[in-house]
């Protein structure tokens, strides 16, 4: 019987899973690129990013280029948490095969 507590509830939500996946694929993502890639509204994306930031999974960088730009990246804690989440998913799938 699988222990559901192993699934990180912060990551195990469709929108936040998408955010974590994109952040894991590149060093950093500007806010607008995240929004465009995920097809989310500003408010929705900000809410989920705040949740991930409060959990210590995401870091925020604000830069002044030709205009103000906010970028997000995975922290080391976030990267480890995401890898562990993937391992748990794999375990679930393998458990279901037996």
């Amino acid at each position, binding site marked *: 019987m*699988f222990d*559901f507590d192993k699934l990180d509830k912060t990551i*195990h939500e*469709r929108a936040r*899973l*998408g955010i974590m*996946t*994109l952040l*894991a*694929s*590149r*060093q950093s993502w500007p806010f607008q690129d995240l929004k465009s*890639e995920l097809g989310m509204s500003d408010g929705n994306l900000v809410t989920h990013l705040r949740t991930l930031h409060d959990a210590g999974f995401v870091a925020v*960088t*604000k*830069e*002044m*280029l030709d205009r103000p730009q906010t970028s997000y990246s995975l922290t080391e804690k976030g990267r480890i948490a995401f890898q562990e989440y*993937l391992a748990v*998913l*794999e375990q*679930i*799938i393998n*458990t*279901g095969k037996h």
Partner: protein
Amino acid sequence: MNLRTEAEENLRVIRSLMEKSTIYRAISAPTALVGGLASIIAGVMIHCWWCMGECSISIAQGVTPNRIQQFFGVWLCVLFITGIANTYFIWRGAVLRKEPFISAGMKMALLALFPPLMTGGIFTLICHEVLSILAPIWMICYGLGLIATRHFSPSSIPRLGWAFLITGLSCFLYFKFTRWDLAIEVHLFANIIMTATFGLFHLIYAACTWPRKTSPTS
């Protein structure tokens, strides 16, 4: 079973997003600069060689210059130099980013580039005597290769690919419908279009995509 289905669905979403978000620049700006400069130098060298020095000397000695061999030799050198430069810049970038040299992005790029480049290679073996076919074929295949990376490369690369494709097709049609009196005219024109495309196009690409320094304030 429900949890397993959900896990599979989540992994599918992860895989899909990872593939969509992978960006791989098959040609970097420094590589384009090296390739562009090497092409311009090679093209000018061949042009001068055929128009002035080597040809007249060879003819005076009763030797027919083998322009095909000269063309191949010089442009293969350009390909070799550019290939070495590209490998170096990719390796250096991977070391700086602490990533593997052969990344997932590189594998995708190689898989996308292989069919058109293999086609170009086979045409080279078949049509190596006919520069009026070969030069446009090289441009067309190179362009198709760059366009094939469009799903995971910056937009500048497929745009460069389209420039090569359209120019190659145009030259192919031009060669087909133009009457050439002398072989030297065909050879010179083939060399000119190679210089213009592999030289100038790459230099323009390098100028447009050269990294610009930004100054973060926090």
